[in-house]
């Protein structure tokens, strides 16, 4: 059957766009199909989140030539401070936090920040421009993909535009509810957290010095992530039944609530842009591949934002897929054969599952006011803080630098 490209990427979110760019960088031709028109994805009200890009993920962005355009607007994370404790206690004079952790990038072997905070909107702008500039990528949007048909040497998908695309491999990057995954009958393990992620950007008087703060409050983690120009991005995990009332507050009252949690260390605060909220949930596909199809990004997994690792897992999926496919093509093998896909699956499933369950346990352990758990936490955090190898491991985890690193993410 006549092929339009080597690979079809279904989905043009942060995952699909990066997959198309990375695969074309490896020399594959790509058709990327997305339900959303490209210009819509960079509108100010499309996605208000920020993404913590771990330092190993940034290596991939550099190799794809995307980092030069992102660097100026990226907030470097030099230190991560993790504090366990209720807000009221934390700001009482003379109070000692029950648990405290400090991750300092200068302790890494490599001279690099632990990561960077980038606004999703900026990421989308830079990737859109690169997609448009690429000769090896054809973007078809807005269009949705229909039911997949596989043949002995190819995979075909009909599009809502009436066109049918045929290639050697289909990459499903169609998000957490992945219609491609569902239609392939691939099951997921999933549950929702009784928590909502409230996201907004604040401007503050003082410099954050590149310090990311995470306070473990009884309702869930409250993260302050350093952006450029004296701004920080907040990811405030709140009990789902209370989030609505916070979101309904006037800007003034909302800032007051933030200040209660945030404390005075950055001086006066003001809101910079709208507030956003996202329901939080966990899902993990039981298989990361189907017939001539690989799942990447949220189509394969979705985890609690407690460690800011959701997208970074997807980056690793994409880089690992690049390695496997390049090896198979270099050996003259069919890139859509089940052997290549099984190799990708083995590589990514274990790593994703460990991080997914790890963040789940962290959230359960910390989003809690139970005195016994608080004791466990403070002991655990004291331990991590004092034991260098343990602290180093956590830092490498935060840098997405653990496990077998795909070549595009290696130093």
């Amino acid at each position: 059957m006549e092929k339009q490209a080597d690979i079809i990427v279904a989905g043009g979110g942060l995952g699909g766009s990066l997959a198309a760019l990375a695969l074309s960088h490896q020399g594959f031709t790509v058709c990327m199909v997305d339900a959303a028109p490209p210009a819509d994805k960079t509108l100010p009200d499309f996605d208000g989140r920020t993404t913590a890009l771990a330092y190993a993920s940034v290596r991939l962005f550099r190799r794809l030539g995307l980092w030069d355009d992102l660097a100026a607007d990226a907030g470097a994370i030099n230190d991560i401070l993790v504090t366990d404790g209720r807000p009221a206690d934390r700001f009482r004079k003379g109070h000692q936090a029950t648990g405290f952790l400090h991750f300092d990038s200068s302790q890494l072997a490599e001279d690099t920040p632990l990561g960077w905070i980038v606004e999703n909107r900026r990421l989308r702008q830079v990737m859109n421009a690169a997609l448009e500039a690429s000769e090896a990528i054809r973007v078809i949007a807005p269009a949705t993909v229909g039911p997949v048909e596989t043949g002995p040497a190819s995979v075909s998908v009909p599009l809502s535009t009436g066109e049918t695309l045929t290639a050697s491999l289909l990459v499903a990057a169609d998000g957490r509810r992945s219609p491609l995954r569902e239609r392939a009958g691939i099951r997921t393990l999933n549950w929702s957290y009784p928590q909502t992620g409230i996201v907004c950007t604040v401007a503050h008087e003082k410099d954050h010095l590149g310090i990311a703060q995470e306070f473990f409050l009884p309702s869930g983690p409250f993260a302050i992530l350093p952006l450029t120009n004296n701004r920080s991005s907040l990811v405030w995990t709140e009990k789902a039944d209370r989030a609505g009332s916070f979101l309904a507050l006037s800007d003034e009252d909302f800032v007051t609530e933030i200040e209660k949690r945030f404390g005075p260390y950055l001086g006066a605060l003001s809101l910079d842009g709208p507030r956003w909220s996202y329901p939080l949930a966990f899902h993990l596909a039981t298989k990361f591949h189907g017939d001539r199809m690989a799942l990447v990004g949220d189509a394969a997994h979705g985890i609690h934002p407690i460690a800011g690792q959701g997208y970074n897992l997807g980056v690793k999926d994409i880089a690992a897929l690049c390695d496997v496919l390049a090896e198979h093509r270099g050996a003259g093998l069919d890139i859509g054969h089940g052997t290549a896909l099984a190799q990708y699956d083995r590589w990514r499933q274990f790593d994703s599952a460990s991080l997914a369950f790890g963040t789940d346990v962290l959230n359960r352990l910390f989003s809690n006011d139970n005195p016994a758990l608080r004791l466990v936490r403070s002991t655990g955090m004291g331990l991590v803080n004092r034991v260098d190898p343990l602290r180093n491991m956590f830092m490498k985890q935060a840098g997405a630098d653990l496990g077998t690193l795909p070549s595009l993410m290696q130093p």
Partner: protein
Amino acid sequence: MSETANKAESTRQAPVCSPSGTTVDAGEIDKFSAMAADWWDPTGKFKPLHKFNPIRLTHIRNEICAHFGRDPNAPRPLEGLRLLDIGCGGGLVSEPMARLGAEVTGIDAAEKNVKTALTHAAEQGVTVDYRATTAEDLLASDIEPFDVVLNLEVVEHVADVDLFLKTSANLVRPGGIMFVATINRTLKAFATAKFAAEYILRWLPIGTHDQNKFVKPEEARHALEGAGMVVEPPVGMTYQPLSDKWHVTGDASVNYMITATKPQLS
């Protein structure tokens, strides 16, 4: 009894292309014919060969490129080379070699395998000249010798290893290169390749290998040198259960591969 003795005798004395000698072990060919439909199933009986394929193909590609002074990272690095794959089975190696640009002839003693290979290559749009024949018959047909001859995972299934290797070597042109991959006859090979692969992990159907037929690298070297080849030390292809991956190593005690070259005529 006397028949086997005669055959051994004849291989020692007769010229290697003797039409009287055969490398075919009928029982082995029946076994492979029965599995013919399975060749390309990534989860079927040949799963171990599929998992093993990327590293051995990459190794072979690199060695061929080094020998003929080609860029291994070119899109079709083997363009124009004539390659013979002896015991090609379903074409697990022939097809990739053709994709890399080689002009491939694939031969197998089992007709059913050749049919599977032909059908699959047609589906993939890859051209390979598949034939149901043996190395000795091909040599007797006066075919032009090849730039590259592959002998992968076959010697442990043939009736007469010495004859088989010498016949294969005679199909290499002067200045050409040949590869032999098989399983060593060591306790470790017996324990891991035979038992782990066939009985414990159920990778291979029980009875695929008869360990008495495993071949030591020295034996292969001896046969090849006898046919005028220059033989390199073997490299190991080692399975690491923890990472579930194959690696090229210096440990030739189980799976190994030998590269041999035929000197140019002076």
